[in-house]
């Protein structure tokens, strides 16, 4: 699944022209911006369904651009950059990019990444059908109708996300609610609990699981979630 519109922000005209050509060939309406300021000054900079961003840009720096975009849009952001260095990667992730591809990349790889990120966003945040928590039966029902049995810990976890109503829940809050506070045992910590729950959901549905980690902060359930 490809987005209908993409803003491609890259100051390398040769590369972006070829990439735009490739994506247009797949039916996407691609707008090229060689300078990030051009995008921000455009009539409707936040209405694109997807953003492909380089990091070293004239105008606002790529990482900063992502931070600005994130304030206004939940659209997918893919970073395609020649910049290497794990510290760059961390910056990009914190700024809110969905994926980072290191140049050189083929057009197939860019397309693949765009499809994956876009599909995840469309099937989670933008889905019309909510995920349903049934406290009485201790189950979670996925938008495509699959039922996941929840343990007592899983249920408390899902209730935290219900209360948060789409906001990020801090790690220590989750740990405390789950009675895992101070548990040094790595097999039973919060991260392991979430990993196991997500794994169980992924076993029953091909949908992307909206249970996402926010770097060093906590976790968020990025999809409509209701009490059944």
């Amino acid at each position: 699944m490809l987005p209908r519109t993409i803003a491609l922000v890259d100051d390398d005209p040769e590369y972006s022209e070829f990439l735009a050509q490739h994506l247009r060939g797949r039916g996407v309406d691609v707008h090229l911006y060689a300078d990030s300021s051009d995008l921000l000054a455009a009539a409707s900079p936040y209405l694109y369904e997807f953003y492909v961003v380089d990091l070293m840009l004239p105008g606002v720096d790529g990482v900063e651009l992502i931070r600005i975009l994130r304030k206004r849009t939940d659209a997918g952001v893919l970073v395609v950059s020649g910049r290497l260095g794990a510290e760059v990667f961390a910056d990009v992730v914190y700024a809110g990019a969905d994926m980072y591809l290191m140049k050189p990349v083929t057009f197939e790889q860019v397309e693949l990444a765009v499809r994956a990120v876009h599909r995840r966003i469309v099937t989670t945040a933008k889905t019309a059908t909510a995920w349903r928590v049934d406290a009485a039966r201790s189950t979670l029902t996925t938008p495509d109708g699959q039922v996941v049995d929840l343990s007592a810990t899983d249920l408390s976890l899902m209730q935290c996300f219900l209360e948060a109503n789409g906001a990020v829940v801090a790690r220590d809050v989750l740990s405390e609610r789950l009675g895992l506070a101070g548990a040094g045992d790595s097999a039973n910590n919060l991260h392991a609990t979430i990993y196991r729950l997500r794994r169980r959901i992924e076993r029953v549905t091909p949908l992307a699981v909206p249970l996402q980690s926010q770097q060093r902060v906590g976790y968020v359930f990025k999809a409509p979630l209701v009490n059944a």
Partner: protein
Amino acid sequence: MPSDADTDTGAGIGWHQPDRLSQLFSATPLMTAFVDDAMIVRMASRAWCEWFGSSVAEAVGKHYVLTIGERRERHRRHIELAQRGVEISFEDELVDALGGTRWCRVHLSPAVAGANAAAPCGVMIVMLEFTGERVRSELIVRQREQLFEQLRDQQRNEQMQAELEKTRTLLDWRTTMLTERNEMLHLLSHEIRQPLNNASAAMQATMQAIADLHLAESTPASSALARAENVLGQVIGTLDNTLAAGTILAFGEAALELTDTDLPVLIRLVLADIAADARQRIVLELGTDTRTVRLHPTLMRLTLRNLLNNALAYSPGESAIHLQVSESDDPLAIVIDVADNGSGIPDELRPRLFEKGARGANSRMRSGAGLGLFIAHSVTKMHRGSIEALPNSPQGTIVRMTLPQGLAD
């Protein structure tokens, strides 16, 4: 013969009479005494008597050894020599009531009456206390020792300071070199990768244009382009490895930021990194439905690319490479196997398989600096995981990477 003074002056008359002399003697502040040839103390000063814990009344007229008491041995030996006409001096010491020590130099002068110097008529004893001098000299010796000690400490400190300075200089130099190297790496990273990226883009566009012509068979142009793309892929791979190795070495674990990563998507990205003709030899076996895995996508993409390219290069031309993903519950982990049917790893290479620069002897048609497994090992370690090379059946190697999940950061 009496002198003129004796006869002329009435006041001086009788000064050499024994009791007068004795009185004079006893009053002198010096420690002095006269012992006759029969070893009887004839005259003694108070100070001399006090040295031996005696008094003038007790000492005078008695045998010398009665006064000197316990220290008689040393004194008698010397005084006997003096009685034979030898002028001699020696040292004596005394511990007083407070436990302090006093020192004295004892001078013995034979008293000669008449011409026979070998048979003196007695011995004149003069003792000079030098306790102060002695204490001072001891103090000086101690101070000198302390000074020497301080000097040695200072020298040691200076040496250490110099060593420290040297180390600091080396560290500064190393930091400068590392910084310079990183700057070089970033320069390379941008200045070379950008054109490579563009060349690759142009080539892809050309291939697409040829494909759009819908020619029945592959043309010489398209196969030449495919070969060119392979070469480009190799250059890119080597460059990526060099840059990653540099980053890993320079930053270590600080470089690591794990994120929720879609593993099937990452694998498809990796497969697209492999040259098209080699890619079809890879058989993907997803043995788990788990898709979201916590790892470093950029470094893991490079690692998987390295493992696959290694397996492809070290196994027969048409043989399949199996990329298997499975999961483990204890420990909670994702397990990635890359299995080939090659000739296996030579024993001599095994111990240093994951070291930098380790390369197989039969590394035919392989370019590269032997960084592949070194990076795989470093990246796995950064994920707090493990990597091992196991024998495949009936032949070949399985490189197994175990990446723990659900860990606290």
